């Protein structure tokens, strides 16, 4: 435990040293770094993906375009542009159906469709998850509380610099007549990773 505290303190000092040197050399300003972090906190996040999913549930034409040419479908949503060359330039949506359940993983590092899902949760980056998701996806999903019936095929998509995958989850029953906004509110990041299904909250005020 004290080793851990020491490592944390060292890492904090190391990044402080790195940043202060880059600032002194005029390579980067602390404002630029603040802006990047703020952008990820405010503009890039799973709320974007949720809007895409809700729209696809309501608009069959949009859904078809999303599955065929994800990048152009997303372009029409007027989201903030991705950050120069960072993840998310080549995104591809895959649809969950009663026949197929999709799960995304990045086996090599932590590629993730930032513009639609924001930054990945820490379990996505965990070495054990990254290895096991490919080897025994059903078992991993079961640990997430998701029992996939034997009759449903499980596809695991390895996200990379070439393609960042995300999942178009199934629309849950009991949401007939809901607006796009109401639907977007129940779409979770986990459902767009294929680690959960979209549930209708039991209590609706």
């Amino acid at each position: 435990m004290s080793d851990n505290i020491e490592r944390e303190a060292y890492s904090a000092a190391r990044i402080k040293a790195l940043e202060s040197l880059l600032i002194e050399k005029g390579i980067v300003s602390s404002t630029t770094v603040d802006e990047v972090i703020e952008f990820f906190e405010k503009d890039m996040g799973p709320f974007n993906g949720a809007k895409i999913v809700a729209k696809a549930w309501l608009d069959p034409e949009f859904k078809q375009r999303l599955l065929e040419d994800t990048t152009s479908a997303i372009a029409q949503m007027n989201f903030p542009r991705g950050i120069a060359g960072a993840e998310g330039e080549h995104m591809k949506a895959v649809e969950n159906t009663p026949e197929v359940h999709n799960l995304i993983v990045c086996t090599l590092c932590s590629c993730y469709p930032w513009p639609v899902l924001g930054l990945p949760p820490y379990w996505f980056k965990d070495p054990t998850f990254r290895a096991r998701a490919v080897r025994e996806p059903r078992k991993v999903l079961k640990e997430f509380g998701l029992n996939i019936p034997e009759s449903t095929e499980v596809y695991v998509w390895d996200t990379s610099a070439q393609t960042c995958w995300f999942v178009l989850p199934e629309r849950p029953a009991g949401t007939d007549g809901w607006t796009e906004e109401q639907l977007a509110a129940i779409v979770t990041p986990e459902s767009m990773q294929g680690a959960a299904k979209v549930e209708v909250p039991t209590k609706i005020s």
Partner: protein
Amino acid sequence: MQIKFEQFATASMLGSEDAPPRSNGELLFQNAWEGRAFGIAVALAKKGHYEWEDFRQELIASIAQWEASHCKDDPTWNYYQRWLLALERIAIATALLDEQELETRTSEILKQEKAEKFNSQLC
């Protein structure tokens, strides 16, 4: 022992009350330095000091290096420590920084923090 993502699955994903604080539905950074490391890496790519893909390759290498010498469920795993290492390496490789000056500055900061901690204990 539960592995990290299983803990996440049981504690946080199932919506328990003691789930960690989240931003945009996701836990962003556990410690402030992780956010700085993230922001600097992206900012440098944005300014064209290197291609994002080159950073990604450094990250893959630093993660692979850890995995080659640790069990996958080793609790000392820290993603942003791998990220930081990748950032240091690419900054040195692209001549933005010199390894020696980084070492020197780091020890100065650690020394200063130690002194500050000592002083605050005196008060």
